[in-house]
């Protein structure tokens, strides 16, 4: 076993080594992928009074799943993100993350038509990450549930038979 000093030293070494080898904050997405994907996700769920998809952790959700249950979708993502940037460069002369929100909207609309499998995946995964349980990295602080007016943590259904309102 480590004594306390060794433990601290080992921890520091671990922190250093992991900082040294990690090029990105994600497991699958490269930083440039993440920027492109954030642009797409934030068109699907933009910010208003409540956070956008990327602000609510949807990228974390998607990235985690792409290294887990959604491993099979890696190629679709890689190709789709590439296509999104190519389209953006050819139409507007810059990567998707760098063009205006209106231009991003046009590109995502084009993807919906011309890259349907990719678009549908991103749409579903964005909705899952935003409206699903926070345990998988999305819906940060249960923000979407609170947006919908759901008690979080739930109050009803915890208090036994709190049914004054529903009694007939």
């Amino acid at each position, binding site marked *: 076993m480590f004594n306390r000093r060794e433990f601290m030293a080992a921890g520091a070494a671990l922190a250093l080594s992991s900082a040294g080898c990690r090029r990105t904050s994600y497991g699958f997405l490269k930083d440039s992928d993440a920027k492109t994907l954030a642009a797409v996700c934030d068109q699907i769920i933009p910010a*208003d009074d409540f956070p956008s998809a990327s602000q609510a952790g949807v990228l974390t959700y998607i990235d985690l799943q792409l290294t887990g249950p959604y491993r099979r979708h890696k190629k679709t993502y890689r190709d789709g993100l590439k296509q999104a940037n190519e389209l953006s460069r050819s139409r507007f002369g810059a990567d998707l993350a760098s063009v205006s929100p209106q231009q991003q909207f046009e590109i995502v609309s084009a993807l919906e038509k011309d890259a349907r499998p990719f678009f549908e995946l991103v749409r579903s995964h964005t909705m899952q990450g935003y*409206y699903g349980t926070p345990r998988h990295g999305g819906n940060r602080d249960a923000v979407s549930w609170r947006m919908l007016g759901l008690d979080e943590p739930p109050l009803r*259904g915890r208090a036994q038979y709190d*049914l004054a309102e529903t009694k007939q």
Partner: protein
Amino acid sequence: MKHVNAIVVGAGAAGGIVAKELATAGLSVVLVERGKWYTAHDCRKDDLRNQRTTVLGNAFGPDDEGQPRVIVDAGGNVRTVLPSEGAYNNNAACVGGGTLSYGAQAWRYMPQDFRMRSTYGAPAGSSLEDWPISYDDLEPFYDKAEYEIGISGDYSTTPFKGPRKRDLPMPPLPPNREFGILEPAAKRLGLHPFHLPMARNSVPYNGRGPCMRCRWCCGFACEVDAKNGSQNTVIPVALATGNCELRTECMTTGILTDDRGRARGVAYIDADGRKQEQTADLVVVSACAIESARLLLNSASKLFPNGLGNRYGQVGRHLQGHHYTGAVGFFDFDTYDDVGPGASIAVTDYNHGTPGLCGGGMLANEFIRLPIHMVDRVPNDTPRWGPGHKQAMRAWHKRSIVIMGPTQQIPSPDARITLDPAVRDQWGLPVARIQGNVHPHTFEIGDMQSKRAETWLKEAGAIHTQQSGGRPAMVSAGQHQAGTCRMGDDPRGSVVNKFCQVHDVDNVFVIDGSVHVTNGGFNPALTIMAVAYYASEALVRNWKGTRFRS
């Protein structure tokens, strides 16, 4: 391994009951289950990974690894599918089977549901048929299931039901807000709404407490163990007799037969991947419609070259589940009260008696809506993404009601399970190949049901309604899967006799939804349970007589 009297393959709704009935009668029983035994602690409240929303996998099996199926849709497209995909038509793989995580609606079919061909005649291309047993034959066993499993509800306000000797053992849960909105509307339409029957404790029962009315119900294990399935009722009783051994994570690979054509046991692969053989005097297959048929087909031998019980090519045919139809209504006031389980009110006025239609279906309000369920249930004119969609989620999540129900499915011989010639599972067995389509008359019934649901919602004050259901281009099986080992008197048109005994092999029984000739316009769990009690009683009676020695 020690020889036993009976092996039961599959610890679900039916298998649990059979194991309990046989063990209680003094037979030595081994209950084999491919999945694990989960408890209330495994509820997890994960709205993306449960048995209903499976985008991140099934919470209660099977895993996505190594257990594919093959689907052939109505257009003839062949595709390998994972257990977490809808087209897999999954139920569950665990102790309790579907009953661990079901919504727990516990319906009796109506007398006409057992006499569909006599009542309506068979539509062209269908295999609509009568059951060889009647509602009256099953009534005592429905009653037994209601009391042993534990059902709450109140049928007293509807005349549209089969005769029953006594009331349900538990009163209904207090009504939720949707009940209060929908009940007067149904009455104004001349319907007979009532508190639907649920395998859920409304009061303490069977040593467990009542439902705490949380959000996470249909698709989840119950956190407070108030939902009643075989895993917390009959299976513990079976084990307590000392006559029943439960072996989990054991995949049955085949039924073994001797040179006289009788079963001598099963082969299975245990949790450590070792091949095992368990001999027994009789074998009961209770693996759910798709897997039961697959096991019989995978049990081919010299005497049974096409699979066990498949002399006339009937194993796997007439696959049916339920085509779900209904409508969603949007209101200008709050309808959502966050009180589970949600589903609370039903009508059975429409199950039978509509001129031109072979049956109908029960209609009920839907289980509580989690936000993820709402994503594709916003009004049709809502953009699919962008600010408009987000606003619609906000506007309608607490202001919508879904009414739907299982449409009486018209069976078709071409909707069937076969063995896929190429794809194998992690144990090296050919996987189930699911093919065929829903009989078109089912869609006609479904369309009518959707209109009726819409009318009810409008009467309740919906400012906008839209139908759901459509005409999917593939079979329906899923959690309500049934029909693949049909019960009948004629061996050329069925797989088992009216006591669930395989026509060809005296000591093999299929006892689960597979034997359903038709699947009613209701959730099938309670009927699967009643048939299990009924068949078990016959089995025990014969065991005490001839012991099935021919």
